[in-house]
């Protein structure tokens, strides 16, 4: 009997000591999803991480910039690298299976997923910080919806009735926790609906964002983002006013153009001119513009993107912006993306001046400053003589050179109704397809015409 009691003692002790507890182990390297939104501090950390998500290679870590520029090439740059996906974007022969096209789409919704969770859980954030946290999340959400609607929307805003053009699925609140849930098989919202969401988010963000916020979103960056949105809609009054608010807020809070043009690029810390930039260090962050625009001399690939002589010759001989190009491996290279571990510029103050100049010129107003004054700011920094009585074309030319290869290429081309590489601005192939993988898992997603 003694023996049996030994057995019972041993077996019992082991089997009864809370097996279910033993089967619910937590990952020491992570916290539970519910826990991530349990305190004010944690929600703020999720917000920080969403900047990292925004700065992923597939989004503002570079891809949305160079994809815009490759599409807008128009003889200004050549893709010579071996990757077929960027080549398809460059030649506007994109396959529905293009992995860059799929990657940006997915990463954008990751940012939206995070932003939706932050906004939905903002209730736990201390009252003093709550508006700011929501504003930053809305800023993040608006920024990626804007990229989504521009790249994947059936047509540009003005190519038809925005109320019937197909946009992208709109999701603004957290859904079920299981990703395979049918809830996520969403149809495409209209272009108009997506634009309204973006504008609503940006207005809210502009209201509640602080004027200074380290390298995170600030009030002026929300204003400039709004100006970009309005420009895509040809709403010049609203664009002008947003650009003007941007400049007013920025200059009142220590932002200004940096002294030299070269000084505005290849920075590991934001300059006074950077309203918003994705942070890149040797330990975190991605800059895929560097990867493809720069060369192996600087630690990049072999120089996949070449700048053509045609583009180089658009700068006058005395334009210091021309000197930023460097010759490597037999072609011109864009010096804005030359060095490793440097921030990715998303919004520079210079753009706000050029937007205000353009809108004032179009509208015949001088809100904030005259078009001449605004255009001559960047021109004088570039070592060029000031213009007097600038024309719209001169402002647009100045905009092209000042912002070259910074990601605005195709959007400016489209809103200006330009023809690029023989394709009119509203051509079917000037829009990305809805990625094949998305349509495979969501039968409610229609494809864009031409794909």
């Amino acid at each position, binding site marked *: 009997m003694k023996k049996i009691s030994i*057995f019972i003692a041993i077996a019992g002790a082991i089997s009864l000591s809370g097996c279910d507890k033993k089967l619910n182990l937590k990952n*020491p390297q992570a916290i539970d999803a519910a826990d991530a939104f349990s305190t004010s501090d944690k929600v703020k950390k999720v917000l*920080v991480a*969403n900047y990292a*998500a925004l700065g992923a290679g597939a989004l503002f870590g570079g891809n949305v910039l160079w994809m815009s520029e490759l599409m807008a090439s128009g003889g200004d740059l050549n893709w010579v690298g071996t990757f077929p996906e960027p080549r398809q974007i460059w030649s506007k022969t994109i396959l529905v299976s293009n992995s860059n096209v799929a990657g940006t789409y997915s990463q954008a919704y990751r940012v939206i997923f995070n932003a939706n969770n932050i906004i939905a859980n903002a209730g736990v954030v201390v009252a003093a910080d709550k508006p700011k946290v929501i504003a930053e999340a809305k800023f993040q959400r608006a920024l990626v919806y804007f990229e989504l609607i521009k790249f994947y929307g059936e047509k540009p805003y003005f190519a038809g009735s925005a109320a019937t053009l197909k946009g992208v699925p709109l999701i603004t609140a957290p859904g079920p926790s299981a990703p395979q849930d049918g809830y996520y098989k969403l149809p495409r919202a209209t272009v108009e609906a997506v634009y309204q969401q973006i504008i609503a988010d940006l207005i809210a963000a502009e209201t509640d964002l602080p004027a200074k916020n380290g390298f995170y979103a600030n009030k002026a960056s929300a204003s400039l983002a709004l100006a970009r949105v309005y420009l895509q809609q040809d709403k010049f009054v609203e664009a002008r006013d947003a650009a003007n608010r941007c400049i007013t807020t920025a200059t009142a809070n220590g932002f200004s153009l940096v002294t030299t043009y070269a000084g505005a690029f290849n920075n590991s810390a934001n300059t006074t001119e950077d309203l918003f930039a994705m942070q890149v260090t040797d330990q975190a962050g991605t800059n895929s513009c560097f990867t493809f625009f720069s060369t192996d001399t600087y630690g990049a690939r072999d120089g996949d993107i070449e700048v053509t002589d045609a583009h180089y010759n658009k700068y006058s001989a005395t334009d210091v912006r021309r000197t930023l190009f460097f010759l490597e491996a037999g072609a011109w290279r864009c010096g804005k993306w030359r060095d490793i571990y440097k921030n990715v510029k998303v919004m520079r103050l210079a753009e706000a001046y050029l937007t205000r100049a353009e809108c004032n010129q179009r509208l015949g107003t001088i809100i904030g400053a005259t078009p001449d004054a605004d255009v001559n700011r960047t021109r004088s920094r570039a070592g060029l003589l000031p213009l007097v009585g600038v024309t719209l074309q001169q402002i647009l030319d100045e905009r092209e050179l000042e912002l070259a290869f910074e990601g605005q290429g195709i959007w400016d081309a489209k809103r200006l109704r330009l023809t690029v590489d023989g394709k009119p601005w509203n051509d079917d192939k000037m829009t990305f397809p809805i990625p094949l993988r998305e349509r495979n898992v969501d039968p409610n997603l229609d494809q864009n015409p031409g794909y």
Partner: protein
Amino acid sequence: MRKLKLLMLAVLLLSVQLLWAQTKTVTGKVTDAKDGTPITGVSVKVKGSNTGTFTANDGSYIINLPKGLNSLVFSTVGFEDQEIEVKGSTVNASLSPSVKNLNEVVVVGYGTQVKRDITSVIARVKGAEVQNMPVADLAQTLQGRAAGVFVEGQNGKIGEGIKIRIRGASSLNGSNEPLYVVDGVPLVGGVYGSASSDINFNDVESFDILKDASAAAIYGSRAANGVILITTKRGKAGKTKFTLNTQYGIQNPTHKRGFLDAAEYIELFREAAINTAKYHYNRAGNWRGYASEAAAITDMTTYIEGRFTRYSGYSDWRTLQTNTNWEDQAFNEDAKTGLIELSAQGGTDKNKFYVSGSYNDQDGILIANKFKRMSLRFNMDNQLTNWLKMGLNMSLNKTERKRLSADNAFSTPMQLVAMSPITPTRNLEGVLYNTPTTTYYNGLIDMEDAKNNANGYRNQGNIFFESRLAQGLSLRNELGLDMVNQNDERFWGSRTDGGTGIGGAAWAQWFRNTRWTTNNFLNYITTIKDKHKIDATVGMSFENRYDEYAYAEGENFADESIKTLAGASTITGGSSSQDKNNLVSYFARVNYNFNRKYLLSLNVRVDGDSRFGSNYKYGTFPSVSAGWIMSDENFLKNVQWLSFLKLRGSYGIVGNNSGVGFYSSAAQYGSVRYGSTGAGLGITNFANDDLRWEKVATTDIGFEIGLFNNRVSAEFSWYNKQTTDMLLAVPTPSPSGTTSVFGNIGEMENKGIEFTLNTTNVSGKNFKWTTSINVAKNKNKMLKLDGEQKEILPSDARYANAVIIGQPIGIFYGVKFAGADPANGDPLFYEQDGKTTTNVYDDAGKFIIGDPNPDWIGGINNTVTWKGIELNFLFQGVFGNQVQDGAGGFMSASADWFDNQTRDQLKRWKNPGDITNVPQARLNRFGDFDSPAISTRYVYDATYVRLKTLTLAYNVPQKIASKAKLSNARIYVSGVNLLTFTDYPGWDPEVNTDYRSGNVNQGSDFYAAPQIKSIVVGLTIGL
């Protein structure tokens, strides 16, 4: 006690007989034919009488032979019976270990069973069979020895990457390796090398390979790929026996394939350059604007000669001053291997022990590749009281590895073959050349200036108590701990490609994986009315696994003779992690045997695993099997030639939990860094409450037969393994926040047959010859991916592995090469119609172009003994599979770039009308044409037959040995991989390059080292 009683009985019988019969006294000694050790407890019977005795501890016996009888029969469990005619008064018997003995005791999960009564499929390889094989990993020793057990080394790097597939692969995303259980404790995997290489297999008594669901189901959610139960040696009562074992030998590659020499290289590349000039001028639009074809040729000639000058360093290529064989540079000349080992075993009836210490030092065949294993073992059994037994198994091992970079790294020795033969290895100052003199980074620099050391420490032990609670009822409690520590120290000097530009780099990683287990089970054996035998086991087990990891890396070394992180001026990274997993299990088994003829076995295990989703915390794995011993039926009893016939069948469901990460079912947030100061929390895993084990339902039908007094015995099995709930990344719509979650939705099937035949061909007094043959065929088929997806096609220019529904896992899908165009030497490919050819690779059709899974595998093992001389040889073969050479596009590429070429490239197309499979030599300087990518041009049949092992041993006669005060002595010469028969043109057909090997990525060669060929001489002495 029982033995004592028997002995007394024997003595009694003996004395009675002494009184009544005219008898003759015979004495002798019974030894193990394998190593000459005495065998205790052997039954010695006089044929034709009831007279019998048993051997004593030293193997000796004494028996009285009744008048008129003159044959003795020796028999004991685990050895072949032997009948010897008595001629003098001394009869020594040397018993061979049996492979077919039906009374053999086989180890099953949580117990043992007699082979005769087993209704499941278990292959047994005895430790003695593989003793002293000069290989690093015990998995290698099993190659070719058990039906349906496929063993493949990735390459010839020592102590690394061995794949075992028991009855095919059942999973796409989980592991397909079997579960190893050593003396009841599951073996934890390490990070470097395979876990099985930590075990000194000379300590192993037996490997019992559980193949069907009935045998494996007792291991539940980890049993889908079969289970290998390793039982280590235990002491036997008797005089302490010491064994000293030494071995020394050399290792070489199985094959060197050969490359162009300097003269051939210059000839081929000059020709390629001229062809390129002509191609560019005439066929590629002359976009470089040469004035004439002659001008193009002049330019290309200048270019190629410039390269020759660059590649030849100080030497003059025009006079062929240098002719380096870079392939030879990759290998050690006659690498050494050595082993020294001492063991002792013995004890009393109550206390028995086995101890051993071993030191194994092997140089790899590749330069700077080494493997050392030091191991200690202590096994003990102690009968504490008449009802309580205690035991202990302890082992302590250290493995030291000097490792090499993966096969796709420039720094791996095998990539030296890409260098030009006109390039000297060193300049006149004796310094190794590097680029631009060498074509690529010179991997020899790594051998001088880099360090890649991985040391592993494994401490495995368990204690057990076995209590006899009542008649037939016993309880066993086991407590085990398996702990593996590994540290990986790497250094790259500033001359190496890993350390250049950053002042050298170093990296230190440290891992500790611990598993502690407890098994507690009751066993009850009873026989009711002599006809119903019941053997029941019920128990529980708990396992806790804990993995810890830390690493740091740094660069910028003040002095490169300091090769640890202590020398790094800048620390550039670091991290640590801890992971836990619990497994709570309950299991039960009932074996029922009616009248010794009708057998039934029921097994069930319930596994609760912390890694599974909240809706599926517990999995249940049942199995049932039945057997019918037909030969015991009356209608067969009188069939003289049929000694044994058993039909058996089983069905069961086993699981595979390996595809599920420790925490992959719960939604989680982890640390995310943003900018220089941003500390964030980002989602790292999405929830899947349904995440669970993969299920494999196995049906098995077979028979076992013994003929002519079991002189011929055979086993046959047919099986059907159906995997369901197979883990796949299920794509999800991006608005969910992620693009995929792992879900249990795929299906796969393996069907096959296995056949084993053992024969005793000659069984004379002095001459004996036995043969064991095993063959197996497995057919794998993908049945379902995520339901909508039909295929996962290859996306790699060098490999064609695909997953296609209806086809085996990892099938090759790609382009068919049609040889060189006789008109112009262009490479041709078949279009989709399979007939028309095109010279544009992208326009070619896509076909099934090969299968990395073998159709048949098998082995033939022969043992021939003549007096003290013993010859054993094992041929092992793999049939019907293909290998794709991913490096073909570099080294068998019609001089596409400057890599030295394989010798077959000399057969290139030269003149219109030439019929050859090697297109015209053209150097792809201008990108005018596609460089060669994967097609059937680089897919080869990899069937092979290999003389896996050959051992010739001489057991010194007892008389001589005892004069030297030895109980036995054995001298042997043994070889591994001595001969390989294959049509595979590469280094070795047994290959799967390490850097990409996986469930799908099979059958790939990429500068993978050939397997190791070893020849050793050894001496085993018993005291």
